[in-house]
């Protein structure tokens, strides 16, 4: 995925749902779902097709100022790869 040009967008089969039992967000899709931590939830909320990956990293740096850019960038990259592998991002294959 190109960081400067690709604008990740969740695929249509995905739904984000708050889980009042665990106080976490769940990303639901057919037959299963992912339980998201706070960072993953923040990333998912930015996968609207508006933001490039670089811009998503910028957003997160503003919210998690004490973490290095390299670390955040790696977390975003790894998480987007998980989503893409499961077909949860549009046109990411």
């Amino acid at each position: 995925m190109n960081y400067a040009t690709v604008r990740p967008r969740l695929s249509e089969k995905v739904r984000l749902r708050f889980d009042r039992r665990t106080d976490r967000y769940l990303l639901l899709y057919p037959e299963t779902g992912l339980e998201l931590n706070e960072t993953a939830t923040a990333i998912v909320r930015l996968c609207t097709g508006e933001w490039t990956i670089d811009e998503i990293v910028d957003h997160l740096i503003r919210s998690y100022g004490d973490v290095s850019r390299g670390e955040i960038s790696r977390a975003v990259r790894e998480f987007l790869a998980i989503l893409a592998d499961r077909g949860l991002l549009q046109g990411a294959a």
Partner: protein
Amino acid sequence: MNNKYRPYTLIAELTYRCPLHCPYCSNPSDLAEYGKEIDTDTWIRVFQEAEELGVIQLNLTGGEPLLRDDLELLVERARRLDLYTNLITSGVPLTFERLTRLRERGLDSVQISIQSTRGAVSDRLAGTPAFNRKLDAMRWATSLRLPLTLNVVLHRENIAEIEEFIALAEHVAADRLELANTQYLGWALKNRHALLPTREHIKWARTVAAEAKTRLRGRMEVVFVTPDYYTEYPKSCMEGWGRRFIVVNPEGLALPCHLAHTIPGLQFERVTQHRLADIWRRSSGFNRFRGEEWLPDPCRTCDRRAIDFGGCRCQAFHLMGDAGLPDPACTLAPGHHVIESARAQAGRSVSIPVLFEHRTGLGHSSR
């Protein structure tokens, strides 16, 4: 009281009625003895109670759920509860207008079964001319941008078509392809001699599916389910008894799996008489094979006990006569010889028997 377990998925079997008559149908094989279907209000209450218990996924299935006139309303109410709602259908009694309405009411995804990629074979297996209607239903799903799972129940007569199934799934732009070998219970167990593929069939099919899985990663999820008869260890049936799933059958009986009530001596309750939370926590049937306390030897000391939970209780009962025994699919189980002899029989059968047991009455699910 049992608060340790949370159900994630409710499998709502809305009806046992079905226009299809598949020889591997997963519905109970004594359908004539079943009574009245529970009504709309009861289902809506069950959805609410399930959501309160922690359920987030809802599978609307059957039989053929489209035969329920209240399906639109049920979908709407499920969506209002923010349940991820999946319709599992033969696709046969569907129209574009109805699928559009279901989509508008909040249906999240649809799963359509197919018996064969060859029209004539598909229609013969389904026992009714269904093939072209299924293709239409798949196209409608795609055109409505409704996530589509194509479900294939594999057996000896269609396993050679595995490449065609993959090609068809790509052609209709499915999101997910389930290539699931028959579970040999219910009707499929009765017809096992005609259905069970050979080891070579399975090996080849698994390789083809694995290649497709890699090639299509990110575009289409390809799931291949090996029959228990060719695995070293049993499946973690329902991911463990009473652990993550609740099935409610057409009569309102709440069950840990769709065939649990075919095991004699277990008591299950109806959602018309009890709250779902009470059933989930207190039902002696749900608690009977929960956790590890009940495990027989050699499961109780096995390293895999937290992976497969001793396997399938229905299989232990139907093949060994005792649901409390280890699943004979396991190579470590004392009863494994019954699996070996069924496998040997499959290896010996050269031609494919053409006679399936024919059934009358209500009809059966395609699943």
